């Protein structure tokens, strides 16, 4: 294999970073599905009705809200404790 020039190397790093970001996105979607599928889908029907669709979207948003709330509160506690 020929040596990579500097330009190729930068391009390769960009590609690897993009793939890592995609993998992280996919892993997060799997995690949402783990939490939201059982919460929102009871008996699978002929199509995803709008109530189930809304439930799934809200489930993602509420989970992110929960994450932000907990992370923010945790940061506060750590800062107070560190004084």
């Amino acid at each position, binding site marked *: 294999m020929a040596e990579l020039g500097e330009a190729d190397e930068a391009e390769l790093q960009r590609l690897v970073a993009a793939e890592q970001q995609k993998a992280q*996105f996919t892993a997060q979607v799997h995690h949402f599905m783990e939490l939201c599928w059982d919460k929102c*889908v009871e008996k699978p029907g002929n199509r995803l009705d709008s109530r*189930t669709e809304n439930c799934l979207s809200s489930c993602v948003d509420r989970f992110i809200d929960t994450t932000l709330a907990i992370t923010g509160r945790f940061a506060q506690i750590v800062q107070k404790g560190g004084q």
Partner: protein
Amino acid sequence: QVKVQIAVANAQELLQRMTDKCFRKCIGKPGGSLDNSEQKCIAMCMDRYMDAWNTVSRAYNSRLQRERANM
């Protein structure tokens, strides 16, 4: 070729999780064969799982963009 490998790995992960979820949803007490209603349930469960996957991806993606816009 690396891209193909990643796509195959992603498909396998999706299939495994989908199979687990749909087995749990559609098969109560396992019997001597998959009966008609179980087969239908599995096919529908699979289609709904992929619909739900798309809905969840879109919701996550649009939330990411809103968060970035707010920064």
